[in-house]
């Protein structure tokens, strides 16, 4: 059966850590999708009779400071984290790749301006820039996603630019130019497919980083707003009950860790298979 699969897929399946990553990521995605079916309780339903209750048959992972079920909130929280990570990177790709392609293909003053702008954005630590943008736009999940997307865009600008610079000199690009193709057509039809795998690898690793930043912002109270459950904000509250109810902070942290580890393993596997120059 293995033999019928395309070579990159076979290569991927032969790496145990990459497969582990895929399994972890799929598990989290399924948990997020089927949260309403899997959750034993409503994620925002308070039960004042069971405040900070230890794990039990009724509440397998215990309850939080309002008596809400930790497992249910964890499952629904997966939606916020995964959505934030993927949309933030999507924003970064949508801004970064076209800008980088044009910048690297045209060179000249366009390239110069773009590069100085990415230098300026990259001179700020991610969290600090996201903090500044949240202060401007107000704290919400959308703000956090846009902020992370803008901050990561330069990574994709650089990536697309480097590839475009290399590919503009290659024969097939020259041929396309000689045939009188429009610049936009060359960029979309000839350059874009050639950088797709590099972008995919970088995007998968960036999703992991974006989830970490989103959870840090939510942890600081600047991301997802209550009562919507998110892993970062659960941890924020749990910090206050570290001794009495360690489960309120342990499980959301573990969920972030496992998700990010899974995505990183998956991204590493993809890179090994798609981009053999790197290890």
């Amino acid at each position, binding site marked *: 059966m293995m033999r019928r699969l395309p070579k990159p897929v076979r290569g991927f399946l032969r790496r145990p*850590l990459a497969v582990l990553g895929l399994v972890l990521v799929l598990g989290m995605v399924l948990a997020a999708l089927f949260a309403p079916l899997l959750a034993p309780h409503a994620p925002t339903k308070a039960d004042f009779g069971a405040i900070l209750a230890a794990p039990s048959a009724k509440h397998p992972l215990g309850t939080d400071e309002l008596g809400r079920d930790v497992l249910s909130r964890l499952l629904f929280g997966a939606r916020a984290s995964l959505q934030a990570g993927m949309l933030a990177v999507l924003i970064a790709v949508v801004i970064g790749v076209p800008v980088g392609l044009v910048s690297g293909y045209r060179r000249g003053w366009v390239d110069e301006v773009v590069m*100085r*702008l990415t*230098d*300026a954005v*990259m*001179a*700020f*630590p*991610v*969290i*600090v820039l996201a*903090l*500044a943008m*949240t*202060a*401007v736009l*107000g704290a919400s999940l959308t703000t956090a996603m846009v902020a992370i997307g803008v901050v990561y865009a330069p990574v994709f600008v650089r990536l697309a630019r480097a590839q475009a610079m290399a590919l503009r000199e290659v024969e097939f690009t020259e041929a396309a130019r000689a045939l009188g193709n429009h610049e936009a057509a060359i960029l979309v039809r000839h350059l874009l497919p050639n950088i797709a795998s590099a972008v995919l690898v970088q995007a998968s690793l960036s999703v*992991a980083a974006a989830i*970490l930043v989103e*959870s*840090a912002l939510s*942890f*600081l109270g600047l991301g997802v707003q209550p009562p919507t459950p998110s892993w970062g904000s659960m*941890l924020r509250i*749990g*910090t206050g009950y*570290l*001794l009495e109810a*360690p489960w309120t*902070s*342990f499980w*959301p*942290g*573990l969920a*972030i*860790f496992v998700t*990010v*580890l899974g995505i*990183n*393993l998956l991204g*590493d596997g993809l890179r090994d298979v798609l981009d053999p120059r*790197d*290890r």
Partner: protein
Amino acid sequence: MAIYLLRRLLTAVPIILLITAVVFAVMQILPGDPAVMLLGTEATEASLAATRERLGLNRPLHVQYLSWLGDVLRGDLGRSMIDNRPVTTAIANAFPVTLQIALISLVMALLVGVPAGIVSAVRRGGVADAVASLVALSGISLPGFWAALLLVYVFALQFDWLPSSGFVRPSEDLWGSFLSSLLPAVALGLRPAGVFMRLLRSSMLDVIRSDYVRTARAKGVGANLVVMRHALRNALVPLVTVLGVEFSALLGNVVVIDTIFAIPGFGRLIYNSFLRLDFVMMQSLLLLFALIVIAVNFLTDLSYSLLDPRIRYR
């Protein structure tokens, strides 16, 4: 070299100017009125107008920008709008704290990451390699604030070996200061340790497979000596590059770690200034962050020529 230095410094000027413009623009689009922040919402329109006049907020934007730029160049960053402290004093108090924790953290990360990367590369494909690789990726994947909480739970709350929060200044108690920076430094260092390990592994693998290492081996140079003399030396340039990047990332991560450990460092300063919309403090700190990152990049570039004689600057 001297000419390269000069040119490099000159190219930094437009970037720094661009950054000051970005910082100034961010301050302009921030919601809230600094005059109201200072006087409170009860203030009369007349006193608000007087304060705006005094702060120069009525002047055209480009005049405000240039006057701020002039003040910054003269080393006058203004006073905090919350407690009226000079911003330079607040920075002078917070910066050594963060620098101390950052340095301890990076040194620990190097001490763990570099040997682990070497072992991993030398025993490529073995059990040690697989374990080290998974541990390194875990370090990168761990949310720092969660790691911090786990550390506090184990080392402070369960065993009472280390303080759970607060910071002791080295001038008060040197050993106590080290102990108080240990948990935050470990929490911050997990990520760079993983990054260093992965980097060292891959760059050593490149060298180990290269022709000149094969030649050295064939000449009968002992395997350990080959690794140390050739492979490690070639891994230094990428390592220094990543060290600079990780230092910048660490400056961002202290925002979270300072909050957890109640450390009076850079992170808390910037977090509080954003939370209370202390405009003057915010713009100074944003600028300072960017300048530090640029300075670190500059030093990184300079160190290349020291580490690798093939890299010469013209």
